[in-house]
């Protein structure tokens, strides 16, 4: 009956997408950091698997914070 169940539908899993190379360099420029200074996410993480991200990709999470509304958070796949 229902479509395949995905963990991405879960309320606790924030919206995520893989950043393009241009976006990554813009991001690193904006925060004056190197890629390895970003928070990390494991390659085996269920969300990474769902997105099909590879090592070195940067993933953008759209968190729903009760304080600051929508906030963006970045993690690099290691």
């Amino acid at each position, binding site marked *: 009956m229902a479509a395949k*169940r995905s*963990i991405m539908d879960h309320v*606790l899993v*924030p919206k995520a997408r893989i950043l393009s190379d241009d976006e990554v360099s813009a991001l690193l420029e904006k925060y004056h950091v190197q890629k390895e200074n970003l928070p*990390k996410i494991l390659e085996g993480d*269920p*969300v990474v698997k769902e997105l099909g991200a590879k090592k070195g990709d940067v993933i953008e999470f759209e968190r729903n914070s009760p304080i600051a509304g929508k906030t963006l958070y970045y*993690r690099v796949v290691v």
Partner: protein
Amino acid sequence: MKYAHFEPSVEKFAEKRGLPKTKVTKLKKAVDQWLDSVRIDPWYPAGLVAAESMGEPATQATLRTFHFAGAAEVSVTSGVDRMLEIADALRKIKTPSMRIYLKEPYSKDEDKAREFALSIQETYLKDVAKISEDYFSREIRIDLDEGAIEDRGLDKDTIVSKVAAKVKKKVEPEGNTIVLTFGEDMPLMKLRKLRMSLEKLHLSGIRGIRFAVVGKDGDEYVVSTSGTNLKAILKHKAVDHTRTISNDIHEVAEVLGIEAARYVIIEELKKAYGDMEVDLRHFSLLADLLTYDGYYEAVGRTGVAGKKGSVFARAAFEETGKHLTEAAIWGEVEHLKGVVENLIVGLPVKVGTGRVKLVMKLGE
């Protein structure tokens, strides 16, 4: 507006009050100004403030004891015990528990919810029967408890067939008793091993869920469990897979990913602190720290504190000798950038006003 994500709510407010255009712009400006004023200052020691804000109430909570009354409740660790579990990232928490939201019609019908709760409770043969062995006649006797079987919504025939499948021979029950007879050549050790594996014979339910009760949340029925198995539960057809959650943070990180685990850390900290008011931002800072490396790690020497960049900061925490010798061997450099390092050597801590240098402009 400078803080764009506040714009919709400000506009909504203005529309509700019927404010004219000029006043709306004024209001937006005022909101921006206010938001500027509540932003933390440069070099504000956010981590220290978070630590103190969480630490002080924790000292108060030590004195409180919690009691649970009533049988049909799933008990959950709270207070200091739970705070420690979260901060130390314990793999085996004292009271793993899940909150299962159901799909319709299960969520609206109490009987159906009960039936579901019963069906997921794990049941082993030893829960519904007394098993004894007789070495002299090489027998295993299984005395089924009819009441227990009924309580758990099972029936005798399925149990008998499961036992038969396990021992790979024909089983004939007499009343409520099953007697398994083995020949003379059956080694005693094997008999004992068989008895033990029969005790653990899985009859029904989902592995890991020891107990499940139905409760009410708003207008729907939810199931609380003692013991967790999030992965299996999310696949169950009666379960709402978008809201069901476990309090085992490691499990959530494994099944739903590190970001979901971060949310659970915050939620669980909130629950652990209960009515002691601690600002959410402190919790989220800690949660960000605990999940920084992509997995859920403890605060202690194996986790956050043990991975600090500064030798002195690590040595000041635990295992002083180890860190100092290793740093000497590898020629580590102490940059004196953090708080602890500067306290040790007696320099101003590089935080707040300790971080800025003032130069006077003469002749103006």
